[in-house]
């Protein structure tokens, strides 16, 4: 164990090389629906219990199942309305359980990235071979179901090992959503620097789970928060392009009392046509890797200990 994750160097937000998104846009905006499958009776991981009550703990299970039966379809409908393609954080076993949902997203040319096999199988305690099998299963399963080679990763239930990020680079992932240290993309330090793995801004603070079930906000409070988040990132994006992600769970945002206020958020953000690049995580990663990755690596070097600025 080590005191610092050693995955990136300190890089102050001020005076970074300017990012300009395609067509001069200031904010790269992407929406990340977490499309998850939770098991009613998963095997036990000694470091984390899936459900608080004895099997069958139907309340939290059915609470999440609501997303696949009901919420997803509402969310997809309003994203269609504003021409937003999702970047799906996918429990890849969804390809087996509910291919109906995977196909509906695929038909809209949405992007998929891996969010593990199930959101009830945690990475804690896995040896390297086990963790490799999660990544290999993810790549193979999504490719078989959609033809897409996944480029991104968000560990299931945010559970990691010290090897996770390095393995992502080795398996040719472009981006990780697992780290929350910034509002702009940046290179990650791995033993495969030629692979150009980046950290993609995702955000827990504007995640619907945090808003509703950690901070106890109402639907309209969350909508207001998202508009303020956007306004600020737009202002800063004039100086250097920012990324705004809205991470969502259909079992939360897709509820009847929340979808209306959330629709207004999408309306508000997409109305800023000249300034917003409405895109997917893979497109942001691709553009960044090609355009700014090398510049960023050079700039970060200035702040290394012992190097004078």
């Amino acid at each position, binding site marked *: 164990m080590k005191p610092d994750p050693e995955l990136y160097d300190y890089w102050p937000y001020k005076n970074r090389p300017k990012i300009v998104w395609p067509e001069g846009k200031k904010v790269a905006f992407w929406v990340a629906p977490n499309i998850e499958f939770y098991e009613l009776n998963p095997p036990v*991981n000694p470091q984390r219990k899936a459900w608080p009550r004895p*099997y069958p703990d*139907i309340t939290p299970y059915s609470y999440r199942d609501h997303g696949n*039966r009901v919420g997803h*379809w509402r969310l997809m409908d309003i994203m269609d309305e504003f021409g937003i393609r999702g970047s799906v954080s996918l429990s890849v*076993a969804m390809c087996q*359980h509910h291919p*109906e949902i995977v196909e509906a997203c695929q038909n809209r040319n949405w992007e998929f990235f891996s969010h593990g096999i199930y959101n009830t199988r945690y990475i804690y305690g896995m040896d390297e071979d086990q963790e490799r099998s999660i990544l290999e299963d993810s790549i193979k399963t999504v490719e078989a179901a959609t033809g897409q080679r996944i480029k991104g990763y968000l560990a299931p239930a945010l559970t990691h090992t010290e090897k996770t990020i390095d393995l992502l680079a080795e398996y040719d992932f472009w981006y990780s959503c697992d780290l929350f240290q910034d509002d702009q993309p940046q290179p990650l330090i791995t033993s495969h620097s030629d692979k150009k793995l980046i950290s993609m801004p995702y955000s827990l603070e504007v995640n619907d789970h945090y808003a509703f079930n950690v901070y106890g906000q109402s639907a309209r409070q969350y909508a207001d928060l998202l508009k303020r988040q956007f306004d600020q990132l737009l202002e800063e994006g004039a100086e250097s392009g920012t990324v705004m992600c809205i991470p969502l769970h259909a079992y939360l945002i897709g509820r009847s*009392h929340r979808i*209306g206020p959330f629709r207004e958020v999408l309306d508000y953000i997409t109305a800023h046509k000249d300034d917003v690049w409405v895109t997917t995580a893979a497109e942001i990663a691709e553009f960044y890797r090609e355009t700014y990755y090398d510049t960023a690596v050079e700039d970060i070097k200035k702040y290394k200990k012992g190097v004078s600025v």
Partner: protein
Amino acid sequence: MTLPKNYLTYENRRHGMDHDLYSFSPLFDRAPVTWPSSKKVALWITVALEYFPLVPNEGPFKAPGHMVTPYPDYRTYTTRDYGNRVGIFRILKVLETLGIKASIPMNAALAERYPSLLSEIVAGGHEIVAHSIDMNSLHYGGMDIDVERSQITQSLDTLRTLSGQSITGWVSPARSQSENTLALLAEAGLAYQADWVNDDMPYVMKTDKGKIVSMPHTMELEDRHLLVNLGQNEDVYQEQILEAFDCFQKESSSHGGRLLHLNLTPYVIGQPWRIQALKQVLKSLIDSNDIWTATGHEIMSCWKEQQ
């Protein structure tokens, strides 16, 4: 510490659910239903009447709302009792004023302890829903099947005898079920239960002892969840209920009748400073003229006839 090999085997990784209790069915793919007088949204109100004994159960967990401090927890006991003595009467008055018949999940022990409360509810034309014996009588995974069967039987016998109603619906304390609950409820001849929170409309569940309808339980709009667990205020409580109604009203134009369920907790919404919020929000719903208010049994029956 390495995880065992079976942590990466997936026995139930197959099309549909990872169990056999119901089929996957996206809400928007289903045939539309029509409510009486073609109303757009059925409003189903449940008011839970719970008896929390001063000595809590030993079991694997305590029901939400149960005793907190060391024995004797007078503060919690009497706060819950306040709901059954005072708060419920405020709620019943609001319902009567607006002409709403509700469904009342009631612990059998409470019907025995407070017969005048039961009479008041029956006289008001509300539906009694079985709610096991008391809040210590949990239904949980691993419990003895005979004990569970007798909890169900005792609850139904008591409530049927004392209320004179046939009783076709069930809600478990803490909405908790064992691996046998659904089959035992079907075996007991119950037509519906409302423990699962995965849908906005009724749907059919399958058990070894026959089918049972799952009525939606909207935990996310429950007074206790919003006002107590999440610490929201009464304005926001009303606002979100009206947002839900708005959503259902819109969906009904292309997808048929929708169902708005609200669970009320007498010791929460029955407080003097909160009751007007309930009255206002229910009045707004009724005034829309798009609402069919009915009991769980009526809504379930109307839905079932159209399947």
